[in-house]
């Protein structure tokens, strides 16, 4: 039975990802001065689990790194070593290397970079209690004296020269000569005529080099080539060439074969205790692969013996051994009845395959194990040979491409529109005579709403996917700037659309780095200001109504209003006479605006904040900033739950219907005549609770001709924009509804003041208003309308 290992890869990848993420977050939490033992244990376990999986599934490069990592962690958790900050750096670097390796394996590749050797050497040095002279990792991979590390990298090559893939006239000697040119070749057990295993050792031999040679003589499928590293050597060699040569009944406990002694695939100790196995070079002298001790002794005697194959073992006299013994006795019985067909001689019969099929008795398992050999642990070989399929354990979740989900969301959108159309048509019918149609319609409405919610929930992911990168970002950035900063995450479980999550990462990254660079003061300044030495950044996510609100808080120096105003004057940025704090703070989102005294490599070049704002606006979100001098700055991002569907308010203006995003609407009022004023330079304004808001007439902005009704008969909707609030004049508020966003850009072209379009129930297209753009458009209108403005042309 051959088992396709590739089917487990995906689970392993996901699991390793998780472990790496865990490890990183634990490392970042770790207090080096007072390490929490449980935390060290958890970090160790994460590394350990990755190593176990990597080894099992043949990702030996990862197994090697994790092994070295684990060795150091083991010493830490046993308190043989005191953790130092440099170790955390090394662990983080190792985590990064492992991530890269994992990513490469996901793509069916292998990560090759000198980073791997560098971090291994670094970790090994730390394991031996050495610190690097500087915090940086050593530049060149120096050979280390760790005992696990082999002197030379080596490869294990297993192939069957008699297999059909091989050309008939292959001379093993010639092949050996070719391989010998690459490095030192060790040949084992060719005489048996079964698959042979060779070892090739030497520096700088790549997999491709070996494959090239075999490519000449056979299909590469027939050849298994695997690297043998320090981490895995003992295990791999533990079962290499024993496959060919085990005999159940041969009594040769005292005749170990020197070559095969290190490879016990199936040998059992008949004596106890077994010899120490600490070093890979250790040959198990007492062990013979031809001495299945179990079977030689009297029935039941097995129970008293240790058996040890190097890769597994059984403790004599331990609980449970009675069962093993009875099983063995049964095996023997079956053998006696003629099921055991093994040649008792150490030289193995060639007719192994016929036995496999013909006799499903107890000895079958070892035969198969020995006969078919290990499955190719290197991924290329396995992937080529077997089609990937998923294991039965994976059915609790499935992986679906995002496109499929998006398609589903699109279809649900169409369904919502279709329903709206049907309802529209049905509204002309008599409800009494068409009762069934109406009840059907209401069912349809409910079902499509449920369907929509379910489909949307597929795309929802907890925001921790973005938040989790920040402990690292904060640590690295703070260390870089020699500041002390802690990060607190609140509301990580808040869910939002996957598309938004991905697009949030960059803006948030920028904001956080900015907060550390410009917000949080240096430890000295903080102490001088009577604040705790360590600054704090809080990332907070929450649902508020139909929105996601994300805050980036810092307890730093806050924004300097005077500095911003001076900068604005210097750059000629237009501002009102007595600007509000909010207005002033919004300046930092203007392009090319930086008040940093000096440009650091973290931030301060003035590119960024405007990009951040643009990114957020593209997600139909908005960004606000609050700041108090000496107390800190809070940046608030408001986002809709999803990109595909918008909660909107349908408003009528003349014959046209527009959609206003609900997130933007503050309130709507029926204005009185005296509330309308005209202010020089600002055009018409609305006075509401003592505040004058710019009044936007959509008719003018969109050039729709004369207003249909008098201003005082209209409704004014107050909306939030990035430039502060504004008042939008509409004829009628129609209904609050969810609309499916259709891009105007892809279907038509970009139109200023409009962020998209949607299809209404009656089949007409309604434009979704972009309130931020409307403010700008309105400002541009001013000179035309007032003609006398001096400030109007600044926008």
């Amino acid at each position, binding site marked *: *039975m051959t088992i396709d290992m590739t089917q487990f890869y995906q689970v392993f990848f996901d699991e390793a990802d998780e472990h790496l993420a865990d490890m990183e977050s634990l490392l970042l939490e770790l207090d080096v001065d007072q390490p929490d033992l449980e935390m060290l244990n958890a970090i160790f376990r994460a590394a*350990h689990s990755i190593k176990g999986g990597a080894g*099992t599934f043949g990702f030996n490069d990862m197994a090697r790194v994790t092994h070295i990592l684990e060795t150091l962690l083991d010493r830490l958790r046993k308190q043989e070593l005191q953790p130092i900050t440099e170790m955390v750096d090394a662990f983080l670097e190792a985590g990064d290397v492992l991530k890269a390796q994992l990513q490469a394996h996901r793509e069916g590749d292998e990560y090759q970079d000198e980073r791997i050797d560098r971090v291994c050497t670094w970790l090994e040095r730390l394991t031996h209690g050495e610190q690097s002279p500087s915090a940086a990792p050593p530049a060149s991979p120096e050979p280390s004296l760790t005992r696990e590390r082999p002197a030379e990298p080596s490869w294990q090559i297993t192939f069957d020269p008699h297999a059909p893939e091989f050309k008939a006239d292959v001379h093993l000697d010639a092949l050996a000569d070719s391989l010998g040119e690459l490095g030192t070749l060790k040949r084992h057990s060719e005489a048996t005529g079964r698959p042979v295993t060779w070892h090739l050792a030497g520096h700088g031999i790549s997999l491709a080099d070996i494959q090239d040679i075999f490519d000449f003589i056979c299909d590469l499928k027939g050849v298994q080539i695997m690297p043998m590293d320090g981490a895995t050597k003992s295990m791999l060699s533990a079962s290499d060439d024993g496959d060919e040569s085990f005999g159940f009944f041969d009594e040769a406990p005292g005749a170990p074969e020197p070559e095969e002694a290190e490879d016990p695939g199936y040998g059992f100790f008949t004596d106890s205790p077994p010899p*120490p196995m600490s070093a890979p070079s250790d040959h198990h002298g007492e062990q013979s692969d031809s001495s299945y001790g179990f079977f030689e002794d009297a029935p039941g005697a097995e129970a008293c013996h240790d058996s040890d194959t190097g890769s597994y073992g059984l403790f004599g006299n331990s609980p449970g051994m009675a069962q*093993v013994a009875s099983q063995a006795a049964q095996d023997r019985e079956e053998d006696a009845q003629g099921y055991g067909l093994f040649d008792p001689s150490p030289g193995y019969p060639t007719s192994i395959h016929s036995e496999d099929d013909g006799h499903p008795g107890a000895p079958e398992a070892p035969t198969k194990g020995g006969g078919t050999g290990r499955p190719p642990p290197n991924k290329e070989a396995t992937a080529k040979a077997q089609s990937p399929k998923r294991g039965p354990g994976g059915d609790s979740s499935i992986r679906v491409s995002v496109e499929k989900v998006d398609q589903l969301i699109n279809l649900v959108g169409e369904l919502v529109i279709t329903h709206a159309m049907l309802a529209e048509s049905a509204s002309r019918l008599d409800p009494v005579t068409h009762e069934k149609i109406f009840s059907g319609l209401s069912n349809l409405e409910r079902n499509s709403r449920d369907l929509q919610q379910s489909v949307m929930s597929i795309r929802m992911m907890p925001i921790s996917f973005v938040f989790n990168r920040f402990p690292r970002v904060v640590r690295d950035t703070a260390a870089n700037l020699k500041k002390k900063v802690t990060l607190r995450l609140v509301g990580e479980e808040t869910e939002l659309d996957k598309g938004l999550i991905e697009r949030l990462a960059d803006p948030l990254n920028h904001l956080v780095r900015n907060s550390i660079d410009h917000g949080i003061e240096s430890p000295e300044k903080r102490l001088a200001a009577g604040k705790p030495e360590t600054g704090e950044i809080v990332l907070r996510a929450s649902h508020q109504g139909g929105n996601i609100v994300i805050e980036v808080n810092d307890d730093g120096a806050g924004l300097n209003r005077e500095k911003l105003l001076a900068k604005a004057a210097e750059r000629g940025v237009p501002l009102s006479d007595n600007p509000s704090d909010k207005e002033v703070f919004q300046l930092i989102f203007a392009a090319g605006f930086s008040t940093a005294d000096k440009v650091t490599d973290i931030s301060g070049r003035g590119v960024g904040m405007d990009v951040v704002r643009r990114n957020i606006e593209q997600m139909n979100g908005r960004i606000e900033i609050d700041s108090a001098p000496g107390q800190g700055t809070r940046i608030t991002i408001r986002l809709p739950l999803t990109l595909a569907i918008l909660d909107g308010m349908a408003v009528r203006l003349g014959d046209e219907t527009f959609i206003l995003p609900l997130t933007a609407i503050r309130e709507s009022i029926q204005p009185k005549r005296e509330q309308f004023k005209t202010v020089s330079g600002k055009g018409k304004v609305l006075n509401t609770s003592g505040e004058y808001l710019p009044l936007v007439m959509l008719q003018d902005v969109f050039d729709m001709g004369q207003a249909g009704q008098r201003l005082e008969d209209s409704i004014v909707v107050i909306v939030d924009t990035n430039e502060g609030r504004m008042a939008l004049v509409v004829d009628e508020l129609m209904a609050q509804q969810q609309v499916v966003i259709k891009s105007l850009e892809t279907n038509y072209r970009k139109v200023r003041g409009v962020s998209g379009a949607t299809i209404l129930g009656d089949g007409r297209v309604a434009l979704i208003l972009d309130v931020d753009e409307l403010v700008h458009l309105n400002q541009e209108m001013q000179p035309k309308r007032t003609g006398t403005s001096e400030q109007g042309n600044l926008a």
Partner: protein
Amino acid sequence: MAKSILTVDDSASIRQMVSFTLKGAGYTVTEAVDGQDGLDKARSGNFNLIFTDQNMPRLDGLSLIKELRALPQYKSVPILMLTTESGEAMKAQGRSAGATGWLVKPFDPQKLLEVVRKVIG
């Protein structure tokens, strides 16, 4: 009746591999995600063989074995440790905890089956 095996490992991939391999060979397999889960599942079931990882959250492999050995129905059921090390110290600990044997990780499915067949047929 198919023999039933409990595999205790906090690594889902290893668990799946073990489970898939053994199910393919006709055994009934139950998975447990850590030592505590393993103990709970062992208590409510009757297994012919138990595989356990060593390093696990909540309850580690050695403690699990000790707990199991204290239960009457697992006094003499084979319990094998899946471990990444095969040093003497580990073996001594395993033996004193009451393990029947050990199997070194990484192992391949053939090896696993071979051991299982050897132990419970």
